[in-house]
């Protein structure tokens, strides 16, 4: 029913690289900026150059290119569908014609297909670079500080960061819980096969205990937080304070100066 092995949540890979030591805010701003820039590039060659640069960034961060490849492979279907959609629908010089279903593969289609696939690959890799080099704690800290100014218009920045860190922590636990409940129900004779109505009904004995235990956990955690005097974001300090150093300024200015050059080229 669920496959726990392919879940790479909290995929932070601890290394001792310059990119890992950057302030999470720098990485956020840089990745968002790079993603927006990628969406504006309209040449296949520019995207290829971008791919090489990202490859170098991966190596600088001490991450293997195989890891990048593995992450892209999980998007195989999205990429394949995108490619086929463009390759077969775009009109132009015919390369191959598939007789029975009257589909034609055109040269222009293949180029456009490759372009869109490459664009998605670049976006995936940038997001991966961010999550692989930023620990969940740094991630939420950075997010909280970035959302800070939005407090004035009523967006609860601290609460949002807190909720994100709690749910990040709990996703693996909840998944394990599902597996545990499923085994417990099987040992009591529950069946997860049969026709469709039976299969749908078989979810109830998993979901109900899941919710009950979730509510129990929520109570326990709330009690633990209250007994440690948690009172929200006001006057709260953190153990590791974020510092915006020289390398952060250098990275950001490099991003903002160099990327438009790509665009012109």
């Amino acid at each position, binding site marked *: 029913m669920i496959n726990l092995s392919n879940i790479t949540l909290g995929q932070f890979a601890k290394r001792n690289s310059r990119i890992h030591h950057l302030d999470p805010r720098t990485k956020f701003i840089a990745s968002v900026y790079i993603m927006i820039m990628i969406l504006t590039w309209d040449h296949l060659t520019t995207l290829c150059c971008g791919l090489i640069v990202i490859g170098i960034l991966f190596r600088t961060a001490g991450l293997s290119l195989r890891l990048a490849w593995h992450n892209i492979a999980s998007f195989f279907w999205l990429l394949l569908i995108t490619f086929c959609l463009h390759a077969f629908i775009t009109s132009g010089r015919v390369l191959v014609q598939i007789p029975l279903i009257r589909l034609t593969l055109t040269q222009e289609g293949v180029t456009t297909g490759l372009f869109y696939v490459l664009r998605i690959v670049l976006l995936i890799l940038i997001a991966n670079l961010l999550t692989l080099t930023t620990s969940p704690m740094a991630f939420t800290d950075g997010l909280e500080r970035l959302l800070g100014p939005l407090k004035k218009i009523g967006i609860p920045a601290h609460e949002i960061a807190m909720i*994100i860190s709690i*749910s990040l922590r*709990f996703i693996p636990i909840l998944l394990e819980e599902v597996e545990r409940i499923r085994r417990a129900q099987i040992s009591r004779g529950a069946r997860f096969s049969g026709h469709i109505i039976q299969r749908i009904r078989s979810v109830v004995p998993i979901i109900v205990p899941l919710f009950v235990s979730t509510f129990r956990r929520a109570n326990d955690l709330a009690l633990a937080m209250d007994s440690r005097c948690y009172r929200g974001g006001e006057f709260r300090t953190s153990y590791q304070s974020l510092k915006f150093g020289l390398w952060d300024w250098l990275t950001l200015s490099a991003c903002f100066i160099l990327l438009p050059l790509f665009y012109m080229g």
Partner: protein
Amino acid sequence: MQKSSRQLILIALMTGLTCTGGFLRIPFFPVPITLQTLFVYMSGLLLEPRQALISQSLYLILGLAGLPVFATGGGPAYVLSPTFGYLLGFPVAAWASAMMVKYRFAGPTGFKSVFSSLGLGMSIILGMGAAGLIVYTRFVAGKPVEPLHLFRAGVLFMLPGEICKIILASQIVRRLTPAINRSAS
């Protein structure tokens, strides 16, 4: 016990549960049914409107930030995927269902009232999903497709599965209410 920290944690856990929903699949031909929307409906029934909105929006943000919590992964590239409209519908649907429950247009447990509030949620998800498909075919793929075809593929095709999940949600809520009341006291 302070009420606020428990509420905070509940929002977080509903976000977490929606993420796990993507991994819970009922094998079914041709596409397996995932239980994500079940948790969207559940958060609409169990949380306050604002909390439901926050929990589902954060689910979206986590997915877009690159955690593989959507049906086929995650990451900002999902904005360009054909099914992004459905995902955008999640927070709106959860909020709308919670509003229905809050203002007593529909009580939380009765079969009929659950149906009406979740029916609204479902129509929002499917409606926004279909709109997302139209936007995708027109602007991302650059090839407009007949709206009727999209309606058939994007709404009618999903309808049976969603109705099953609504029935499930109503059954689950009915069984859960005594347990929640016990744990809240």
